[in-house]
């Protein structure tokens, strides 16, 4: 029963008990994507052209919505103090919480994305690369987002501030995520873009937990 699995199990149990949170994230992803045809027009060729980009942007915004809940509840009810005093490395505890967040928001987004891709007439070759790109991209979104969430702990307008801090840092993931879908749709191989996405994920996985732990320690100081 390592610390990692303990924290992960508790967070997943809490998420299941309050499953409304991940449902709202998926609902936002759906409604935001469905808005675009009203704005851009229903022509299939236009929608197909922008489908990858639209899905990626709405997925990023959906994940961002649920991020400031990752630490605020624990910060306000005193659990964060106890987690920091658990005697275990705080980065490990943070990694467990981030993976719990990814499982409850990232994975539902990945599962939902093909359904929404249909409404945007995404060409058939784009489905697998889209899901694969999301699979490699959403962990980075959760990791970097957790650092932002830890930094805005205790501020009044946390949500808005969090998006100002974190969205610029999501741009590389957005660029290579959309490029992967575009490459597949235009017949080129999506391999290189997916590898860069993987690289970004590994970089985030190695740096973000440490930065998040530092941000949490200074938040409770």
């Amino acid at each position, binding site marked *: *029963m390592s610390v990692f699995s303990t924290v992960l199990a508790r967070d997943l149990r809490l998420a299941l008990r309050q499953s409304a949170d991940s449902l709202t994230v998926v609902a936002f992803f759906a409604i935001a994507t469905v808005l675009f045809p009203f704005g851009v027009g229903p022509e299939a060729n236009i929608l197909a052209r922008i489908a990858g980009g639209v899905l990626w942007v709405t997925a990023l915004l959906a994940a961002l919505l649920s991020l400031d809940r990752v630490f605020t509840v624990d910060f306000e009810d005193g659990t964060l103090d106890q987690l920091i005093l*658990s005697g275990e490395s705080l980065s490990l505890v943070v990694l467990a919480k981030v993976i719990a967040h990814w499982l409850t928001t990232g994975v539902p987004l990945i599962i939902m994305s093909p359904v929404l891709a249909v409404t945007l007439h995404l060409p058939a070759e784009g489905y697998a690369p889209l899901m694969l790109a999301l699979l490699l991209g959403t962990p980075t979104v959760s990791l970097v987002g957790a650092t932002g969430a830890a930094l805005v702990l205790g501020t009044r307008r946390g949500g808005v501030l969090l998006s100002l801090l974190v969205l610029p840092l999501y741009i590389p993931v957005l660029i290579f995520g959309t490029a992967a879908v575009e490459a597949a749709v235009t017949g080129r191989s999506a391999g290189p873009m997916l590898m860069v996405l993987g690289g970004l994920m590994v970089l985030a996985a190695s740096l973000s937990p440490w930065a998040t732990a530092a941000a949490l320690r200074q938040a409770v100081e």
Partner: protein
Amino acid sequence: MSCEINSTAPTLPLVARFRSAMVRRMSGDGFTSGRFSGEGLACRRGGRLVFAGLHFSVAPGGALVLRGPNGSGKTTLLRLMSGLTPSSSGHMAWDGTPVDDRDAHAARLRFVTHLDAVKPALTIMENLAFWMALWSGKVEDTVILKAMEALDLQRLSAFPARLLSAGQRHRLALARLMVAPAPLWLLDEPGNALDDASLTALAKMIADHRARGGMVVVASHGSAFVEGGMTLDVGAFSPKTPAHWSEEEE
């Protein structure tokens, strides 16, 4: 910009010799921990120097009651002792060796703050099981049951914590102290929101803990539940004149 103010507060009387003799007799599953002390501690909160030149010492089996008016820094001192808040000067020692590895220090203490750290969506059993697994790596129902019985929570064990009253939630926070032993207990006004029965239960818990060689530091106005403990008036160490400001001006 931290400045050293050596106040002329009276030095604390050293640990009573007879207490350590008593501890050695009742070994049981006692702690082999050493003395927890601090020297010349100063701390700033939001730019304000809360206290300076503060020193304390707690021996195994001993208890330290922190006194002082509101805002004099009792909670800040407890957070400093726990390692959550860094001191701007001075150092703490555990069994003579300076405390510098925060995680190692945290592993040998339990800190009950004003906030109860209770998850409303989880039941009492699940709450306690989580902390036991986190601190000791294993979950034993017998230990959890004993912890709940110590604070008369066993009848409510299957209830989700959101149904508990403030007093019951606070008793759950105190029950956490029993699920995984740690030598040092830091308690921030544990008596609040407790009824008489719970106060006597708390007094017994603290007495048992000290009997096993554990140490307790309590910030509290009333101290019915700690007898024979040493007292530290935190107010005596707060800066007398607004030193920081006037010092820089001349």
